[in-house]
């Protein structure tokens, strides 16, 4: 059983009016707040955001991963 830990995922969203894809979702993530924020990435597609959240939850259920958020594909 993995040691108890608290993960954190913060999504900051803002809209860039006039952009071809106006959504900006900056995701800061950690699997253990004792380690501080491990990775921050900004995404522009809602489905990518959902995927990052899904992945993070699955990773929280498993052993502590080395990295968390995959780089967005372009």
């Amino acid at each position, binding site marked *: 059983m993995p040691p108890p830990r608290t993960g954190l995922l913060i999504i900051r969203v803002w809209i860039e009016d*006039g*952009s*071809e*894809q106006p959504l*900006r979702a*900056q995701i800061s993530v950690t699997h253990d707040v004792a380690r501080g924020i491990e990775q921050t990435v*900004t*995404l522009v597609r809602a489905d990518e955001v959902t995927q990052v959240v899904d992945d993070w939850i699955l990773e929280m259920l498993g052993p502590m991963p080395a990295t968390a958020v995959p780089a*967005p594909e*372009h």
Partner: protein
Amino acid sequence: MTTDTTPAPDLEVCILGTFRFRAGGSRLPALAGGSQRLLALLGLRDRVLMRAGIAGTLWPESTEEHAHSSLRSALGRLSRISREAVVVTPLDLCLAEHVNVDIREARALAHRLLAPGRAVADQDLDAGAIRALSVDVLPDWYDDWVLVEAEEWRQLRLHALEAAAERLLDVGRYGEATGAALAAVRVEPLRESARAAVIRVHLAEGNQSEALREFARYRTLLRAELGLEPTEQLHRLVAELEAR
């Protein structure tokens, strides 16, 4: 917490950046963790808080009884001088009136800068003001009660920095305007309005190559991070220069 008549020292709770508790401008020895969190919460909320609410906020995973016990312990562990900073009643707690809180002053500064049509004092635009707007609230604290307030402050200061840049630009203080606009860019490098503020300052100062360079930096970052182009509005700012 005390009632003697000796003049209270000049006390300050600082929660911009790391937590500090100061008296007469000097930093005091570190407080116990619970006491530190208690002062930080009182400073951040900046109003009278019920004991039950404080206990539940600071120790959300404890039973009510245990959370109250932790609060009593945090109060008991306050140093002699930090007790001067807290007004304690059987029902509630707050910071004493004479205690300064850096976030209180910084929030007031931000609101003055954002008030449309309102003139501001010189000191609201000086280097100290820009510094105050350049710091996050307790950046390494991940408690729920910190995160929400920290995010609110982050948004407020971001807008205030852009407003400060505009105000400085209006009075021809270009160097300081650049500093304020770049501080906004550091908060959120992908935010276009902050980049536009930097570019407008360069253009007003007649630094066309700097304006183009800033635009190019932003475009490169946007392409690399998001695979996008800057908006038409930003393009228009430098369109004439690009055409030359």
